[in-house]
């Protein structure tokens, strides 16, 4: 049982690769992604995907990590979200099991 934080990022699906690269640079122990069927609405209007291209889709990235890593992640992904939109929220969690 460990007190950690959960970082949740929702942004343009096309940016997931860049986000993953950034997470690997930060050196997190792991992450989870919901890469399809994440639609939504925000400042850039409705994002419900385009069947022919991979545009207008969102993805959800979730990382369980410690405070220090969290701050690194936030700084790393800020330009991506600033440019391509989305949100990054952080909340407290307790890690009960991790292999």
């Amino acid at each position, binding site marked *: 049982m460990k007190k950690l934080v959960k970082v949740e990022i929702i942004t343009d699906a096309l940016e997931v690769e860049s986000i993953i690269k950034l997470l690997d640079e930060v050196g997190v122990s792991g992450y989870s992604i919901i890469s399809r069927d994440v639609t939504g609405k925000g400042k850039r209007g409705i994002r419900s995907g385009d*069947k022919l*291209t991979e*545009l207008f889709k969102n993805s959800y990235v979730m990382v369980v990590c410690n405070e220090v890593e969290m701050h690194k992640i936030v700084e790393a992904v800020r330009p*991506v979200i600033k440019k391509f939109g989305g949100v990054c929220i952080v909340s407290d969690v307790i890690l009960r099991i991790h292999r």
Partner: protein
Amino acid sequence: MGIDFNLIVNNLLHPPVLFFFLGMIASFCKSDLKIPEPLSKLFSLYLLLAIGFHGGVELHKTGINREVVFTLAAAMAMSVIVPAYTFFILKLKLDVYNAAAIAATYGSISAVTFVTAITFLQSMDIESGGYMVAALALMESPAIVIGIVLARVFAHTKGNKETRENNEIGEYREFSWAAVMKEAFLNGSVLLISGSLIIGLISGEEGWDMLKPFTKDIFKGMLSFFLLDMGLLAAKRISDLRSAGFFLPPFAVLTPLFNACIAIVIAKCLGMQPGNALMFAVLCASASYIAVPAAMRLSLPDANPSLFIPMALAITFPFNITVGIPLYFYLISLYWK
């Protein structure tokens, strides 16, 4: 003009085109008719595989002669000229990034428009050379590169807002020509159609006998199904055009027309057959709503996809498959007389 009108009407009465209308109608009256994404992918992959393979087999028969070389050269030339001149027209009204992206969109091609034109010709028992498929494959990519080159050249001359943002984003993603070239020449549709073309070229008649029922017999049915889907998509995108202003919608009709005319003149000079002339005109007149938008979003992130996708998909594509194709053919039949 009478002939022209008949041509248009006849074209509109072909099942594939009628299914396109059905899709549009379904979308306009907010029906819940939906075609799941994997099926759209099935139809588009199938069309690319089938026309690529068919073209390759045809090319295997005819071989590569003088006419083929000239046609492909002309195709290459047009895929450089079109994005270049449209860019400067667009730059009068739009910022560098959107001008470049739209120019690339119109410099590239639409495979579905191409096959609809083939169907149109077949209904009049007019031949078109298999090497026109090679022209199709050749014309898909160059416009992407031209567009990006133009954008970068002109963006850096005047330090506009986008450039700064571009630098900021540069922090986490470096611009790389390697990535651009990969996007341009190795994207799924280019690779599948050229690959299938080469496979057709290699396996020739024997291969054709193997795959004909799949690549030819059910082809028009698959096309109809896909056009039903395209109708649904095109109608959905029309609403996005509100943000496009008064300049772009007319642009999306006049550019194809103008490019078709240039193409027809070139075709005449090269002494192409009417069938090939039409295919060439259609290639130049069509705009890309699959490969290019994807490439632009990645290479020119400052361009706005909700401008160029609706233009190509909701205006230029419907215009070409309904009025454009027969109209271009009418001009050709007048001119070739």
